């Protein structure tokens, strides 16, 4: 124990000295960047995850929920036994009347406990406020859309069935709104106590009963599990985790992506650590030999350097975690606006993660180089050439690869993904390295003279070191270019694909008898030739006369197989689609090729749908390619008109109102109260904001990658500083001014910066073009400006580092520099 403390003290003394004289600066900075990158993402993901759970609970307005067409009295009994808080509500559509106007509304009759989680936003005519309860008895809260079409105002009476209620407020937001597209009618919220008086709900009425459940007990998950076990088979307990599977999956992917992006920074920091540790090893061999000559055992020397690394890890981890915590504030600020909920404070997991990364990186990337020190022969104090054998390549690479694998696996949490990321990263780095090596070799052949030749010769002398620096920096710059320039290019290109007069309003629930009137209305509003497409709900029941085996399908395919389709009828619905196989004119179903692939359908397969209580069976007679960006109504399945004779249908149309024309929308709703309008431009704006914010978050994380690239540069400079100062002194002995020495450095770093910029720009162009063609289905396009941006970034890099390093190289008198 005393020995360990003694070694620790020696390690600490050396550490303080080496931090002061700058020997450990590159390692310290590399660790700082690695820890900051990982903890920033860790804190951010932790907080957004917490917020999403809270938001998911809001989506349900509870911790759990059960829905049924029948009253849920028996479940309420079980819930009470389990001491769960409950709230019940009933929803159903009806027509509400105000004065001479009527409007189809979706009534939601809530009790006094509603909502158990989340809140409502209401506008009482004077203020907009957030409340944690529904309307009091005697009042109705109504969606603004319905209020407008009823031509009513707050304080007016509204007739719901047989009762008269007072409009108390406009309902701006309710927590468990569900899917807005499924909510055909605008909301009218009343108190459950007023329900009986309406006379609208009888035993035979088609209504939806919901039971909300919540608990603050520590074992609430267990209680919900017990409840789920006791539920009748026809009922299902819905938990927040599964309420928004698509959103959750998307965030889980985003979180993994951010984590992996931070790993790129850690890997580059690892490269810096390897370079810096090898230099540190060279410098420390004299000290290690002296200690051995003075009687220290090889074991003791090993222990001293391990202690020193441990202390270094802590020294870097503490400020690194602090930087990570500050950076996540920026990231969290971006996402908080999108999530519309307060982010909870971060937990302590990221702190542990930061420490773990510092240790894994240091012991994986730096320790193997330092193993040599403990084997330094004492003879080295007399004979400079006496050195310990270099550590085995298997140890150097093995430890590095183990560290990388551990770090990637920790972020990916999936063996296959870890393997793919390792292979992808390894391949990209190898390509970058190979190209950088080739460029450096070519540059050496450049017929330069004087300081230019001197500057370029330095790069060529340490070709692998130069290539490593270029590859590391290029990777960082590529990432930033992709996320800044290419991102906006892709979004612009996507927006350009949507014509300025593309439909921005969708109208659904149009009854057949309303079609002519609505067409006339739209004509008056300046919309010529609006197309109305029949739309009906159908459930897929059989494939080739065999019942659909839903268990066969997973994920998206399962959802498609189990939900109702929006089918259309007649060839007109496919007029703007491209038929890729079969014939649209033959009687049968025309299917969008994407869904056909997902569900394993082929031309000629026989599909059976249940439509309006009737079974309709026919073969697939054509496949279509659908342009989903066209903003026109599109359908997965279109049936020939002859198949749907006599089936009741509704219609859908879409049109363009400049800037949404809210007044015209209101006028339209007044004339056609059962019609529901969707203003898609707002949704597009929200999608754009979400993409923008998410990619900005990734951009911030990639800034760490760039910083790690710079640390590689610094580590490489640190490793060659002595040689550089010597060479600069030789130049000055031969009469070169400081200016010329710095000019040589400028040439070296300009060349390095330009190579970095060129490589990054070409890589960003290639990846951007591939993304645009393969992922976004946009025409292949190269942005030549990327070259300018890339080269600009390279020049900026040179401008940042050259003056700094130039000063270090020329501040010592040549005589002193040569002597040292």
């Amino acid at each position, binding site marked *: 124990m005393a020995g360990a403390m003694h070694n620790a003290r020696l390690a600490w003394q050396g550490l303080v000295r080496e931090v002061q004289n700058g020997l450990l600066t590159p390692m310290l900075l590399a660790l700082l960047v690695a820890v900051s990158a990982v903890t920033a993402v860790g804190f951010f993901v932790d907080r957004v995850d917490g917020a999403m759970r809270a938001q998911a609970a809001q989506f349900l307005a509870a911790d759990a929920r059960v829905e049924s067409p029948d009253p849920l009295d028996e479940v309420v009994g079980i819930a009470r036994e389990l001491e769960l808080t409950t709230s019940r509500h009933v929803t159903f559509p009806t027509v509400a009347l105000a004065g001479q106007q009527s409007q189809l509304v979706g009534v939601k009759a809530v009790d006094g406990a509603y909502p158990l989680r989340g809140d409502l936003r209401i506008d009482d005519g004077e203020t907009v406020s957030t409340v944690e309860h529904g309307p009091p008895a005697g009042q109705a809260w109504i969606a603004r859309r319905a209020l407008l079409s009823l031509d009513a105002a707050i304080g007016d009476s509204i007739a719901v069935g047989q009762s008269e209620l007072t409009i108390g407020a406009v309902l701006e937001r309710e927590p468990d709104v569900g899917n807005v597209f499924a909510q055909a009618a605008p909301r009218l919220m009343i108190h459950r106590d007023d329900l009986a008086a309406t006379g609208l709900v009888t035993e035979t009425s088609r209504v939806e009963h919901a039971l909300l459940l919540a608990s603050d007990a520590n074992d609430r998950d267990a209680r919900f599990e017990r409840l789920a076990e006791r539920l009748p088979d026809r009922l299902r307990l819905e938990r927040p985790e599964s309420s928004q599977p698509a959103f959750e999956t998307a965030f889980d992917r985003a979180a993994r992506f951010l984590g992996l992006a931070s790993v790129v920074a850690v890997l580059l920091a690892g490269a810096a650590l390897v370079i810096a540790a090898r230099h540190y090893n060279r410098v420390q061999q004299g000290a290690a030999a002296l200690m051995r000559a003075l009687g220290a055992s090889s074991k003791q020397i090993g222990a001293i350097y391990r202690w020193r690394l441990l202390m270094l890890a802590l020294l870097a981890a503490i400020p690194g975690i602090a930087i990570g915590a500050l950076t996540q504030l920026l990231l969290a600020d971006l996402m908080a606006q999108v999530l519309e909920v307060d982010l909870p404070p971060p937990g302590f997991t990221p702190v542990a993660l930061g420490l773990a990364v510092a240790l894994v990186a240091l012991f994986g990337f730096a320790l193997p180089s330092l193993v040599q020190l403990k084997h330094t022969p004492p003879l080295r104090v007399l004979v400079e050439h006496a050195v310990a054998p270099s550590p085995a390549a298997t140890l150097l690479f093995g430890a590095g690869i183990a560290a990388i694998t551990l770090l990637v696996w920790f972020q990916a949490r999936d063996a296959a993904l870890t393997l793919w990321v390792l292979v992808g990263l390894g391949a990209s780095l190898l390509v970058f390295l190979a190209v950088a090596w080739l460029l450096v070799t070519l540059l050496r052949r450049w017929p330069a003279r004087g300081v230019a*030749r001197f500057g370029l010769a330095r790069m060529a002398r340490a070709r692998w070191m130069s290539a490593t620096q270029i590859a590391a920096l290029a990777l960082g710059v590529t990432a930033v270019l992709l996320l800044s320039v290419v991102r906006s290019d892709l979004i612009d290109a996507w927006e350009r694909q949507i014509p300025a007069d593309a439909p921005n309003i969708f109208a659904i629930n149009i009854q057949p008898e309303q079609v002519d009137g609505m067409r006339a209305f739209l004509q008056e509003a300046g919309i010529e030739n609006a197309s109305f497409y029949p739309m009906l709900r159908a459930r897929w029941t059989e494939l080739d006369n065999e019942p659909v085996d839903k268990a066969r399908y997973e994920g998206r395919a399962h959802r498609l197989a189990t939900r109702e389709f929006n089918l259309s009828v007649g060839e007109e619905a496919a007029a703007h689609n491209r038929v890729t196989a079969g014939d649209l004119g033959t009687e049968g179903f025309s299917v969008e090729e994407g869904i056909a692939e997902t569900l394993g359908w082929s031309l000629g397969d026989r599909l059976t749908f249940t439509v309006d209580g009737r079974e309709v069976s026919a073969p697939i007679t054509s496949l279509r390619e659908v342009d989903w960006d066209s903003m026109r109504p599109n359908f997965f399945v279109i049936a020939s008109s002859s198949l749907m004779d006599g089936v009741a249908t509704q219609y859908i149309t879409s049109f363009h109102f400049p800037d949404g024309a809210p007044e015209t929308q209101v006028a339209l709703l007044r004339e056609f109260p059962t019609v529901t309008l969707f203003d898609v431009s707002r949704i597009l704006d929200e999608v754009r904001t979400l993409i923008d914010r998410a990619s900005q978050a990734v951009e911030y994380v990639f800034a760490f990658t760039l910083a790690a690239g710079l640390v590689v540069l610094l580590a490489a400079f640190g490793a060659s500083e002595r040689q550089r100062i*010597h060479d600069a002194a030789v130049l*000055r002995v031969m009469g070169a001014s400081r200016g010329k020495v710095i000019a040589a450095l400028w040439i070296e770093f300009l060349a390095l910066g330009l190579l970095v910029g060129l490589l990054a720009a070409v890589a960003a162009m290639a990846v951007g073009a591939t993304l645009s063609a393969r992922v976004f289905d946009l025409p292949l396009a190269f942005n030549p400006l990327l070259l300018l941006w890339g080269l600009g970034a390279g020049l900026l890099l040179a401008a940042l580092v050259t003056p700094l390093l130039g000063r270090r190289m020329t501040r010592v008198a040549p005589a002193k520099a040569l002597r040292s």
Partner: protein
Amino acid sequence: MSSLKTPADDSQPILTVEGVTQTVRTPEPLTIVHEASLQIFPGEAVALVGPSGAGKSTLLALMAGLDTPTAGRITLAGQSLEDLDEDGRAAVRAGHVGFVFQSFQLIDGLNALENVALPLELAGERGAEARAREALVEVGLGERLAHMPRQLSGGEQQRVALARAFVIEPDILFADEPTGSLDTATGEHVIDLLFRLRERHQTTLVLVTHDPALATRCDRGFEVSAGRVSDWQPDPDALRGPK
């Protein structure tokens, strides 16, 4: 050669050192050169002799403007070095001074030809490569132009350094223990070459050495001992060497 010549009285000195002192903090103040004064005239070969640590190399560095003295005045090629900043002193070196060092001081990343051409290119002179090639041929390395320093032996590296020193036709050449890193035979060969080249190019030579026999090949010498400079006369016993 066993006697030293006296300077020509009718010429102006190319190098004048007046009361030069150099003190460093290590961290206690330590005087390495103590009020040194001497003059060197064009065409002379002058030796600075003394034991290791006497301050010879420090004095050479001060005389060549590679370092600045704590006190005193140095005039090199008509320029008072104390009036010049580092770049000004570099300009004086570029126009008038050549160097040869014990540890060769070649640039690792440049081949032999590029190393020799470098001072000409730094001075912006034309035909640098052709002149560098001639210089290397002159030192017998015409076949090794493209070799990197690490591919050359110690003697060959020092010959490249000689070619680099003479290619600019310097008025004065400072040589700091030029044979210190070489074995005896190679060292003698390099010294022969050095004196042959200086004769051919009419170059003033300041040679730092701890070897009295080598010093006697110069016209005259100064002894540096504990930082103090005095005239040096060869000791016949020392020149005879051990029995």
